[in-house]
């Protein structure tokens, strides 16, 4: 048998990893741990780019429809509550911070710190969804969910609606008022897709808490936590744009 490691690689004698020393998590088709980490990082970013294009389509639709049916979009956005939106932004930014700290704990092999960070991220994510539920409930009660039961009342008689009255809305003509339904369709599509990403993320976080308690991720192999962190921060970035576009930019636009 040759003394070259390249030739004995994969041969029967190489069973049991006796042929060369390497961390157990290094897959055989990679040269080094660094190459493995760079490759998975690159792959994760490619996935995130497809996500950017996906949400980008929704943002573009919002941009075009807002320009087309501007008065309807302004009046409809006055129905959103800035307090809940701001609180949700703070929750999500904080969860991004705890997630980043979780990655640091994994890198520096602090198991209890990692578990704590993951649990905090989990709780903040649940909190975000809880507030989203309060907001959705209000939309359902006011019949602002697009469909057969959609009500134009807040836009035809703004004085009868607390939020519309507070924003100083004027009654919209019927054809323009009908276009508020497009705003709410986009609102539910965008925040709903964002919430779905949060739900998936929270599910993976639960799995990671379970695994981290068993000692995973703090053995030098941080790829999973790191790439999940990228996903979680991406979801945060989507909200960073949703918040001003849906809640803030139409505050002053109707006078």
């Amino acid at each position, binding site marked *: 048998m040759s003394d070259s490691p390249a030739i004995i690689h994969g041969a029967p004698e190489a069973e049991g990893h006796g042929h060369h020393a390497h961390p157990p998590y290094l897959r055989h088709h990679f040269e080094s741990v660094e190459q493995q980490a*760079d490759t998975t990082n690159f792959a994760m970013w490619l996935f995130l780019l497809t996500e950017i294009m996906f949400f980008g389509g929704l943002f573009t639709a919002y941009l075009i429809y807002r320009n087309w049916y501007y008065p309807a979009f302004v009046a409809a956005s006055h129905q959103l509550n800035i307090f809940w939106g701001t609180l949700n932004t703070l929750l999500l930014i904080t969860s991004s911070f705890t997630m980043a700290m979780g990655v640091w704990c994994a890198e520096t092999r602090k198991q209890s710190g990692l578990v704590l960070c993951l649990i905090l991220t989990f709780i903040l994510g649940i909190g975000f969804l809880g507030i989203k539920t309060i907001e959705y409930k209000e939309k359902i009660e006011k019949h602002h969910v697009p469909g057969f039961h959609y009500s134009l009342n807040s836009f035809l008689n703004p004085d009868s609606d607390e939020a519309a009255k507070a924003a100083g809305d004027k009654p919209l003509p019927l054809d323009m008022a009908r276009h508020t339904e497009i705003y709410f369709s986009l609102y539910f599509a965008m925040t709903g897709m964002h919430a779905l990403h949060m739900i998936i993320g929270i599910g993976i976080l639960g799995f990671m808490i379970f695994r981290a308690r068993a000692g995973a991720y703090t053995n030098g192999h941080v790829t999973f936590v790191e790439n999940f962190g990228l996903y979680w921060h991406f979801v945060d970035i989507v909200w960073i744009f949703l918040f001003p576009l849906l809640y803030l930019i139409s505050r002053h636009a109707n006078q």
Partner: protein
Amino acid sequence: MTEEKELLETQHHVVSPKIYVAVFLSLLVFTGLTVGASYIEMGVFNPIVAIAIACIKMVLVVLFFMHVRYSTKLTMLTVGCGFFMFLVLISMTLADYISRAWGQW
């Protein structure tokens, strides 16, 4: 061989918690700024200011929370290409809408 592996492993850049805290605080400040700015009447500049602040927040998250500042050139190029391509797609779509039937809907 083992020493080489360990050397490679230590090349993994660990971003310090100080940077995370600084980024977190800036994100909170920018959130406050964007909410405050929405209560000020600026006409056409309201959306511009809001989106500019959102872009700054995004860059902070991408560079530091997502470690792109410390990543390989391949990752930097991938991220850059992705955002550039996204802007190209948006501009081309908008160019079509602006030039075709603006005001006729």
